[in-house]
């Protein structure tokens, strides 16, 4: 049980670190945060990282390096979400 929580934490931390490297803003700049389409470190990055990590763990089993890969993908997806889904 502890192993699973450890995996989640690893993917969370790597996604936050990579997102900081990619200069993703911590909080979206447009003021009514609930209507803004900008991705930020607080909102989509951890959720994407945990989701991708859960998928990878479900497909390939509990490995440490999968958590790192999931964190990386989570940060990349949240950084380039506007190009992927179209800027509104």
């Amino acid at each position, binding site marked *: 049980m502890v192993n699973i929580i450890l995996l989640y934490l690893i993917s969370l931390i790597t996604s936050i670190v990579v997102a900081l490297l990619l200069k993703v803003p911590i909080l979206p700049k447009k003021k009514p945060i*609930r209507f803004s389409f900008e991705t930020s470190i607080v909102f989509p990055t951890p*959720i*994407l990282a945990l989701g991708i990590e859960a998928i990878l*763990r479900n497909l390939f089993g509990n490995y440490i390096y999968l958590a790192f890969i999931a964190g990386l993908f989570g940060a990349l997806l949240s950084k380039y979400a506007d190009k992927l889904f179209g800027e509104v």
Partner: protein
Amino acid sequence: MEILDIIKLIIAGIICWINFVLIDTYFGLPEKPGVLGAKTIGEKIKEIGGNLNGGYFMGNIVCSPDASAGTLLASIMNYLMGVKGGLIAALLVWIGNRLCADPGYAGTIGALTITLIIYLLHPIIGAKYFVGGMILAIFSIQGFEHKYASILLGKIAKKMNRGE
């Protein structure tokens, strides 16, 4: 045995109803229609005597997947795959929100909160009852009676200072 199931179902329905109405109202669904289609439904609900903000709330539920969709899909994935299913559902709901031109806050937060609730209530009420409870909740808002549901939603929106 049947009575126990029905009681669990109703309790899960009330929990789901409270969960997704509060999250949707907090994330500003009744304020303005997210998509052009929600305005039509809002005006139509106002025509038959309901509240405009409640109508925008129901229009936003129809047009873009929000906390109600997140709650339902997270409880489905929790029933099928346990806690990690809820996280996968949150990811897929975020992608679905982005496809429907919606910032995605409501759906994802709804999915995470219902995953937390199911994880806490695990031995007492199973995840299967939350699926049925969510259907009862959405039926009470969209399927049963539109006029009074939108008036109720308008009151809740006003109380949380989201609706004018």
